[in-house]
């Protein structure tokens, strides 16, 4: 058992256990941002624009300020600096400066003694608008460049990416089959249970503290400094536990700047809690996409080329849009793909709530299109869809667009869902109304490059080792419900032979913790995990040395077990960990360590944009869905989903199961129910959880999670991501199962009963026409 063998010492790694904060969460003891109540705290509300596109002519707050409960109002002029998560596209003001770009865009903020007074005050701020022409969907944005939502004001384009690998036209020309398909996805929201909340406090020493339900405290720290023009040395960002984020809290938002500014103006703490409606306006949900695919294959099922054209509806601002546009094409080239590929993606601005990253950023929509196409190809060339995927698996080496693939458990994922669902005996044999469908996908374990170019570590951990036997892990990672705190405690406890209860985790506080870039792109386990292990091993070496000295043995003969350190053959003389810590502290001085993770240099393709989508490791997933379709009502019931996910190594298997179940839940919801619709007036169709339907516990399929472990050479003890990958192919698996059940291909999400029924009728009509034609021929 040497340090490098990757096997856990005290047996915590790989063991099922409840997450560290479970009991506190269930008992309601976890304190979220809104639970924080500071003395003299004010409550603020944002004033939002009721027009889809308008120029702000004037703002008069005098009526609002006449109320003695109203303390202060700030507008765009108080913070006239742009921000944006991507350094190349800062295009948002905390509060709109000249133009408001969608219904719900924030234009002013008002602080009052209580929430109700602040809310009433928003109606007493008189704003004059000049209403401007608006683009409310992709066609309008494409056809009316004069609306001028783009950076130059001459078009509505946010980003265009055209990339080509190999000779697509020649390959398509030489194919035995070329199929075309058009697909549309309307967009979905994250719908976290905790809405955004932030508190600003500006103290007499000039220190600004912002508590926020964010998943990127580090970027928030930077942007607060830039927009408010204060040195980062005078800003502290604290992220309390977050009640769900799913990508919806991965960039700074109006409320954080407004709460900070109002706190500076009033000298009192200021809290802003978004309403459910405002949560839908903050949005950054999954982009609507219109996708056109051409896929070629040989008659044996080997794919020849993929040609994709995608129009992306970005909403009012850039957000992560530059990355989204790349991801819509770049992340498709695993796990089964063709040797020739071309994609052209254009993201347009529209006057709608801004879209951004949602679990599976940028690539869930194309995955639906592409995996549906694969099912059609398989049918056409008469190859079993799982077999077709096997045949075209990119198992090792490089993808067509130049990404390095290290560990790959894809084939095992396919085999496991195939066996678990009894695919061979059941697919196509369940009778009309019931069916099985397969789909597969891959995803990044963190982006290889940070959002702003720099060569510093992407994640770091500091350990404080106390002579009482308590070890504290300080790290910048954002616990947003996914379980990073539990994961880090498990890794450190495992390295040091400690009980989980003796490891404390302090995370996401820019004053206390070293930088981590945030909870996005499924980077947490891979990057923070490696940093934690690196730090813990330094401490372990000291414990081992001290124990070796005490026992008079060579350090290489000392091993760490649960609760103590022993020497081989001297098990009776085991030294309890706490004593080992004290021995080490006496010998080396106060104990502590720093560990960090830096991604490998130079990953990705050698072309412009070739770094976007590059990851130190990729996870792999295969889904089989079983559905029941009521042909009279069009209602689809997803009965069961088998999801096999290659997470490298399941460090905390219970958490991996949780991520798989959560991903499948979310994917099936997007397949059947959720639809983020902005109407022809620019109004959200129903910004509340009655009209925007997320599944209840009664609407969730039976989910079988299957853990596949491919032991990544660079992952922490071999681990890769599990938070986003297991979502992607759940949607096309449902689509393909519907085809198996009732013979219809659905090209528009969600598969609502009205659409299913319409497709069934069309199919019946064409079948009867064919029937008539056949009779006439006779």
């Amino acid at each position: 058992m040497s340090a490098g063998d990757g096997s856990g010492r005290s047996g915590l790694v790989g063991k099922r256990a409840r997450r560290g904060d479970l009991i506190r969460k269930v008992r309601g003891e976890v304190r979220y941002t809104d639970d924080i109540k500071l003395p003299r705290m004010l409550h603020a509300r944002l004033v939002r624009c009721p027009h889809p596109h308008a120029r702000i002519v004037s703002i008069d707050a005098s009526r609002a300020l006449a109320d003695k409960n109203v303390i202060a109002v700030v507008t765009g002029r108080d913070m006239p600096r742009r921000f944006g998560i991507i350094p190349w596209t800062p295009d948002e003001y905390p509060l709109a400066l000249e133009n408001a770009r969608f219904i719900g865009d924030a234009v002013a903020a008002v602080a009052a003694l209580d929430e109700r007074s602040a809310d009433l005050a928003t109606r007493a701020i008189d704003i004059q608008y000049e209403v401007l022409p608006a683009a409310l969907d992709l066609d309008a944005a494409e056809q009316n460049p004069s609306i001028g939502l783009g950076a130059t004001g001459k078009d509505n384009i946010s980003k265009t990416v055209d990339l080509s690998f190999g000779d697509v036209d020649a390959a398509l020309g030489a194919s035995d089959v070329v199929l075309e398909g058009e697909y549309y996805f309307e967009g979905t929201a994250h719908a976290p249970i905790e809405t955004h909340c932030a508190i600003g406090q500006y103290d007499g020493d000039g220190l600004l503290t912002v508590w926020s339900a964010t998943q990127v405290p580090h970027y928030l720290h930077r942007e607060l400094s830039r927009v408010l023009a204060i040195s980062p040395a005078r800003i502290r960002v604290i992220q309390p536990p977050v009640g769900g984020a799913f990508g919806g809290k991965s960039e700074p938002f109006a409320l954080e700047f407004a709460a900070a500014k109002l706190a500076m103006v009033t000298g009192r703490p200021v809290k802003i809690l978004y309403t459910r409606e405002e949560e839908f306006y903050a949005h950054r949900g999954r982009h609507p996409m219109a996708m056109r695919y051409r896929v070629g294959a040989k008659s044996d099922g080997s794919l020849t080329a993929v040609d994709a054209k995608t129009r992306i509806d970005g909403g009012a601002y850039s957000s992560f849009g530059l990355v989204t546009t790349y991801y819509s094409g770049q992340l498709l080239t695993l796990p089964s793909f063709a040797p020739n590929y071309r994609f052209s993606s254009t993201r347009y601005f529209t006057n709608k709530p801004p879209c951004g990253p949602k679990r599976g950023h940028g690539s869930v929509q194309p995955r639906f299109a592409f995996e549906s196409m694969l099912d059609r190809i398989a049918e056409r060339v008469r190859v079993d869809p799982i077999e077709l995927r096997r045949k075209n698996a990119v198992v090792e080496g490089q993808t067509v667009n130049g990404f390095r693939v290290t560990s790959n458990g894809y084939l095992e994922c396919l085999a496991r869902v195939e066996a678990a669902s009894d695919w061979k005996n059941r697919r196509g044999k369940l009778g009309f109304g019931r069916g099985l469908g397969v789909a597969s996908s891959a995803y990044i374990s963190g982006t290889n490059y940070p959002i702003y170019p720099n060569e510093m570590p992407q994640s770091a951990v500091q350990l404080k080792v106390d002579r009482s036997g308590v070890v504290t892990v300080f790290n910048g990672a954002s616990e947003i419900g996914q379980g990073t705190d539990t994961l880090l405690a498990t890794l450190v406890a495992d390295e040091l032979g400690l009980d989980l209860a003796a490891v404390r985790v302090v995370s996401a506080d820019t004053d206390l913790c070293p930088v981590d870039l945030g909870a996005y792109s499924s980077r947490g386990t891979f990057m923070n995990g490696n940093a934690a292990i690196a730090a813990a091993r330094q401490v372990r070496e000291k414990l081992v040395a001290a124990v070796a000295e005490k026992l008079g043995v060579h350090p290489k003969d000392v091993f760490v077990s649960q609760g103590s350190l022993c020497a081989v053959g001297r098990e009776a003389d085991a030294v309890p960990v706490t004593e080992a810590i004290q021995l080490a502290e006496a010998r080396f001085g106060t104990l502590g360590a720093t560990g960090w993770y830096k991604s490998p240099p130079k990953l990705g393709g050698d072309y412009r944009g070739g770094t976007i989508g590059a990851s130190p490791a990729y996870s792999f997933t295969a889904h089989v869905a079983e559905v029941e379709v009521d042909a009279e009502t069009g209602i689809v019931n997803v009965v069961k989903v088998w999801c096999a996910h290659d997470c490298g190594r399941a460090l905390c298997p219970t958490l991996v199961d949780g991520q798989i179940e959560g991903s499948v839940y979310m994917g099936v919801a997007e397949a059947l129910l959720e639809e983020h619709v902005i109407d022809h007036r620019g109004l959200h169709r129903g910004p509340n959880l009655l009209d925007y339907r997320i599944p209840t516990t009664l609407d969730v399929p039976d989910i079988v999670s299957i853990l596949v472990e491919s032991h990544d050479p660079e992952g922490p003890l071999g681990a890769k991501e599990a938070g986003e990958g297991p979502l992607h192919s759940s949607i096309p698996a449902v689509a393909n199962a519907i085809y198996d059940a009732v013979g219809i291909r659905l090209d528009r999400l969600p598969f609502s009963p009205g659409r299913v029924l319409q497709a069934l009728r069309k199919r019946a009509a064409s079948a009867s026409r064919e029937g008539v034609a056949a009779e006439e021929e006779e």
Partner: protein
Amino acid sequence: MLPLPAFRLHRPRTLPEAVSMLHRFGSDARVIAGGTDIVPNMKQGLVDARSLVSLQHVEALFGVEATSDSLSIGAMTSLDAVAADPRVRAGAPALAEAAEGVGGPHHRRMGTLGGNLCLDTRCRYYNQTYFWRSALGFCLKKDGSVCHVVAGGQKCVAAASNDTAPALIALEASVELESVRGRRVLDAKSFFTADGIRNTVMEADEIVSRVVVPTRAGRTSGFDKLRRRNAIDFPLLSIAARVDRDGDAIAAVEVVVSALAARPRRMAAAQKIAPGTSPADIVGAITQAAKRECKPLDNIEGDAEWRHQMVPVVVGRLLSRVLGL
């Protein structure tokens, strides 16, 4: 959070005290029972009341009483209690099933039968926040002058969305109303009007005290609703059916369809069924008429065209179940 407007809460202990308060406060006051409808509506700025009169402490309004030929249910009885009551399940299954189908468990525990009967009508342009409605330009039902469902419409057609309403109409229930002027008793079928702004004949100072459901031998009933999720959702269609048998022969059939517009619709085709018609013919005749008689409007979130197509399907399935086919 969306703040609740300021109001005074009154807690009468007796029915006479409650009705006299309502009378005294006039249009400034509203009744609050479980609060599961009126509270969210207040948050959205849909209720102008400055006083709420809570019936939570008026003991006489709670509980189910049974006689040999009827069930008398206090207006404050929770939907949960209504659904679980064995006498209701046996004597008026349509009501038990309707109560069981409301919202989620929390709504049914807090929500009352009286509150369900008096539920405000619902519309996608109405059940929204003040900000949202201001961006829309408001509508006829509240703060505005146009209808967004029926272009140029002069009448509000918001949807009756209370699940127990069609059940109570189908079951020939009666509603007891109390006010300072005394008691009046109405048939459930004449309790509702077609005006979406206010779809009951109740006066502002009246209280629903009890609902009386006749029970009789040979009567069966059932309820079903169309929705996208298996809990929480208000009905996209809400359907109740009753069948009375005389010996083996079917004597009368009633089918009531709701969540179409402001008033639950009693299907004419059901009332026309001649005594002695066979179950299969009954299902055939009523199902055939369903699509023509019942036209859902585009007033609630959910594809109106699909809701229309679903009327005969849900009616047919429910009738088959109630008829034991």
